[in-house]
């Protein structure tokens, strides 16, 4: 009995112990469970956010800016990867040591870096657009408080080539000049955000998938009508004549007269858009678009057009040129050489001011004005470049008698270089005025065309018959005894016109001994492939358009036709011989 009772007591004690231990464990598990529930459920959002802030970070970026290509898809502008280095000055313990290290690696002033690191602002830029290798060299030093933000930098590999057409973009990737500015909305990349997760040692453990598909944020590409080889030929020729004549500057434009697509647009002196800040703002300007000038005798071509269109005279209409002096009221008009009777064609060929003035008197101001308006004088061409000037052509009702005469030989009217070559191209194009363009198409990152720009007809300026007569007159002007004979390369026929225009002071008076030497024309005469304008500003050695600008025209035509594979005409060689 006693034994049974002891056994029962033992069993009961054991069960009590088990219960106590079980109870303790249950309580402990309950505490853990409650705590786990509190952390995982109640505090979940807050703790996740705090943890995420420790190891995850969002970086704001902008997609790569689109590239710019020439008409043959050769790269003119592209973007490359760079890193911008910033700093949180409050988090940097030894500013002196860090500024020395940064200055050594980036090749910038230690004092400047130190000043930036000593700033009271929460964030400062140390250097923008640093090469990835240079950024990596600083990163490897392991200093805290520095930020490395990936970005893109614009590169112009051809340096000064077509600089004023291309323009440039600023440090934040915004277009500031040229087509970079005009097409900024298309070129600019889209903003995006990517997330990186770092471990306790600061190593990147995971990157957002967005990084792998940054291409989808890239800007659109531009295909220009510019041909970089023709651009180079034109730049070389213009540079040579400007330097040879000690001129101040020069402009050259090469255009396809059928479509009015610009093949080359040159401003000399040029600038390097890779380092545009070291050049003056004057050099940035695309003067072929923004600066109107008096066209001088090149306007006689349009006077002849007005005369023919008026129906009051034909190409053989004879005018007496007063042997070099002609008085209109109190003013006397002079010719460079005294002439007697000249036909309309010869007035253009020999560039007689008196002949032009008398023809203008004969047809009247309204006819001349209307023809000039039809050729686009006094209005913008609508070219896709920023800052285009419209030139100046007053209403014919405001013209005095002398104005009618002077406008006939290109004084008292102004026109931009682009408007002048567009008007001359209309003659080559059988009288149809086209809208000039520098951008042919906009493509996406895969090269698919998003938008394209075909030839755009503005209006019919003159009849095809008038255009044909004008071509003959312009071709005569480049014959050996014409003013533009220096413009003709051997083996090719040229239609052209010289111009020598005195420059104007701001008060409207003409400057002594300061001229614009101009030559504008197209070639070959029978089926024009290219129209070229050369303007040399303030040449000091010679100042006649036929002496200064025409040789550049010849060089451009000769080399460009060679490049384009347009053969010389053997018949012209025989005629020359």
């Amino acid at each position, binding site marked *: 009995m006693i034994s049974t009772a002891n056994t029962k007591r033992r069993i009961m004690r054991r069960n009590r112990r088990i219960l106590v231990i079980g109870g303790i464990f249950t309580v402990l598990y309950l505490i853990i469970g409650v705590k786990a529930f509190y952390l995982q459920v109640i505090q979940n959002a807050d703790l996740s956010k705090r943890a995420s802030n420790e190891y995850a970070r969002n970086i704001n970026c902008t997609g790569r800016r689109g590239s710019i290509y020439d008409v043959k898809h*050769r*790269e003119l502008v*592209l973007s*490359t*990867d760079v890193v911008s280095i910033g700093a949180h000055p409050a988090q940097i313990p030894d500013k002196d040591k860090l500024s020395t290290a940064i200055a050594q690696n980036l090749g910038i002033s230690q004092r400047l870096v130190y000043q930036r690191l000593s700033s009271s602002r929460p964030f400062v830029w140390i250097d923008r657009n640093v090469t*990835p290798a240079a950024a990596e060299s600083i990163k490897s030093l392991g200093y805290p408080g520095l930020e490395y933000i990936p970005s893109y930098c614009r*590169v112009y*590999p*051809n*340096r000064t*080539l077509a600089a004023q057409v291309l323009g440039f973009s600023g440090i934040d990737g915004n277009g500031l000049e040229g087509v970079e500015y005009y097409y900024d909305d298309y070129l600019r990349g889209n903003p995006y955000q990517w997330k990186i997760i770092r471990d306790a040692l600061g*190593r*990147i*453990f*995971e*990157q957002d998938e967005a*990084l*792998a598909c940054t291409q989808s944020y890239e800007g659109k590409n531009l295909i220009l009508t510019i041909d*970089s*080889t023709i*651009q*180079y*030929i034109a730049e*070389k020729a213009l540079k040579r004549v400007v330097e040879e004549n000690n001129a101040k500057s020069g402009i050259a434009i090469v255009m396809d007269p059928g479509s009015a697509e610009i093949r080359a647009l040159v401003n000399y002196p040029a600038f390097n858009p890779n380092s545009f800040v070291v050049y003056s703002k004057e050099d940035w300007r695309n003067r072929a678009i923004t600066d109107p000038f008096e066209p001088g005798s090149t306007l006689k071509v349009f006077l002849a057009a007005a005369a023919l269109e008026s129906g009051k005279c034909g190409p053989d209409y004879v005018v007496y040129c007063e042997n070099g002096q002609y008085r209109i009221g109190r003013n006397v008009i002079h010719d460079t050489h005294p002439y007697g009777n000249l036909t309309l064609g010869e007035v253009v060929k020999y560039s007689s001011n008196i002949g032009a003035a008398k023809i203008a008197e004969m047809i009247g101001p309204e006819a001349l004005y209307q023809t000039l308006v039809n050729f686009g004088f006094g209005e913008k061409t609508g070219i896709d470049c920023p800052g285009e000037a419209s030139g100046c052509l007053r209403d014919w009702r405001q013209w005095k008698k002398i104005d009618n005469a002077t406008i006939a030989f290109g004084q008292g009217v102004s026109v931009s270089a682009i408007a002048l070559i567009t008007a001359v191209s209309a003659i080559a194009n059988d009288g149809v005025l086209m809208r000039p363009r520098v951008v042919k198409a906009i493509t996406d990152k895969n090269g698919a065309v998003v938008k394209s720009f075909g030839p755009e007809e503005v209006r019919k300026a003159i009849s095809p018959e008038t255009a044909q007569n004008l071509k003959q007159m312009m071709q005569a002007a480049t014959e050996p005894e014409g003013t533009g004979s220096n413009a003709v*390369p*051997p*083996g*090719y026929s040229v239609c052209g016109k010289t111009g020598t225009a005195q420059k104007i002071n701001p008060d409207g008076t003409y400057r002594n001994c300061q001229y614009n030497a101009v030559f504008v024309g197209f070639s070959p005469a029978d089926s024009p492939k290219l129209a070229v304008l050369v303007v040399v500003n303030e040449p000091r050695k010679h100042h006649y358009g036929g002496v200064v600008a025409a040789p550049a025209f010849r060089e451009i035509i*000769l*080399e460009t036709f*060679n490049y384009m594979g347009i*053969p*010389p005409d*053997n018949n012209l*060689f025989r005629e020359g011989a």
Partner: protein
Amino acid sequence: MRINRRIPSRGLTPGMMGMGILVLILFMAEFFFQTWCGVQCIRTGYELTEMETRRRELMAMQKNLKIEWIRLKSPQVLGRIAAEQFGLTIAGPDQIVMVP
């Protein structure tokens, strides 16, 4: 009289023990497998990041080489080399022979 009554045992039977051990082994195996997967995932994450960084570096290098290549084949450079190094000039129209 002493009654020798056997108290029924509440312990596990060998079959249940075997089943328990098997479950425990499975549980531990799953635990180790999950841990291994986690480690592999982290390692792959680092490798991917490293690869991505390398890809970006190579892309940047390719871009820089492309820029250099564009620079070298630019009309200015080619024109200068052709003229200065090889003495080449543009063929004059009289030097061009048209093949009929």
